[in-house]
Each structure stands twice: as structure tokens, then as C-alpha cells.
């Protein structure tokens, strides 16, 4: 499948290497976004559980949740950086 796409891109662009590079960039960005997506889901899910169990500590749960989301998102940003650097 990848070979087919790269062949099509190579024919369209006339440059096989650039086509493969674009595929690699897109795949890298997409794959790098999956992990943080799962991580953010876990963070928010546990924060909701904590807030439901102890509403009085919702402030602490929200603070920790926001930090957790932001730290997890840094991984997606690194994937975005790789995407930018790989893109022809």
C-alpha cells in the first residue's frame, strides 16, 4: 500500500524521495498523536473519577489534570516538530 502511494506520489511530483518523505512525515505526526491522545484520555478519566468521589478536592484534581494534559501534549508537539523537519 505504501509502495503504491509512494509510486503515485513519485509520478505526481516527479520526485520519489520527496513523496516518501511526505508520507513519513504524515505517518510520524499521526502516530505521535495517538499516544498523547490515549494519555490525555487516561488523565481526564481519572480526574473525573477523583472529582466525583471527592468534590471538595476538585480544585487539586483540576490543577493536576491541567498539568498532566499539558505535559502529555508535549509528546504530540515533539511529533509535530518531527513532521515539520521531515516535510520536504
Amino acid at each position, binding site marked *: 500500500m505504501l509502495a503504491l502511494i509512494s509510486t503515485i506520489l513519485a509520478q505526481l511530483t516527479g520526485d520519489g524521495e520527496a513523496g516518501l518523505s511526505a508520507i513519513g512525515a504524515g505517518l510520524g505526526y499521526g502516530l505521535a498523536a495517538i499516544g*498523547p491522545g490515549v494519555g*490525555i484520555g487516561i488523565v*481526564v*478519566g481519572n480526574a473525573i473519577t477523583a472529582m466525583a468521589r471527592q468534590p471538595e478536592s*476538585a480544585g*487539586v484534581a483540576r490543577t493536576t489534570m491541567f498539568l498532566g494534559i499539558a505535559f502529555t*501534549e508535549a509528546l504530540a508537539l515533539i511529533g509535530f516538530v518531527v513532521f515539520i523537519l521531515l516535510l520536504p
Partner: protein
Amino acid sequence: MAEQAAQPAAMGEEAPERAMAHDIVRRGMIGGPVLVGVCAGVWGFDGLWSSGYALGLILINFWLAASLITWSLRISPTMLMAGVMGGYFIRLGILTGAYFLVRNTGWFEALPFVITLVAAHIVLLVWETRYVSMSLAYPGLKPQGATQ
């Protein structure tokens, strides 16, 4: 119980994530110019604009993330999950769109842009985490004038 959790811990007080985002943006305004200056020193005016653009995107990203959490928590915990997950993809989309918007302009340099993007995000978070760790009490920020 879930409805109680959806309410802010103290009515009338600023939501903790909004307070943290304000703090991060304030620190970004203070510390960010140092990073932008370093990029300007290495890459010239192109580095200055690219680095400043990346810094602006990161600060908007933090503010948008906090606003989405605050807004969705006012509705319900279920909406919080939808808001955060949807917001994650929307913010990634905004970053990607912002990159493609300036990618072919004459002043854009990729390297200072990506260095500022990652460095500003991580440094601002670590900086903020130091203060959050110091006081575990709501709203999670170090009280003004406190010594420890």
C-alpha cells in the same frame, strides 16, 4: 455527586486551570523574549519573527486549553472529556494550520520555530509545576507573598 464535581470548588473564584494559564502566559511574556532574543542572535530577523510566532502559538495553546476545560466543566464531567479530547485535536489542527499559513513566507525559519515551540512549552510547564508543587492547596498556585 457528579454535578457537584462539575461546579468550581469555590464560587466566584477563578478556575484553577485558568489561574495557571494566566500565570503561564505571564511567565511566557517575561521569559519568552530571552528565547526569542537567542533565536534572533543566531538566525537574525527571520529567527526573531519565527521564534516570536512560535511563542505566541504556545501561549495561545495554553490559554485555549484552560478555557476549554473551564467551559466544558461548567456543563458536565462528560462534556469535560469531550471538550479536552476535542480540544486536543482542535489545538493540534490550529498549530498545523498556523505552520502551513507561514511555511512559504520569506521570513519563516523552521529551526527557530520548532526549538521555541518545544522549549517554551516544556520550560513554562516545568516553571509552573515548581510553584504548584510548593502549595498543594486550591487553587494550586503559590500564595502571593509566601516564602515557601
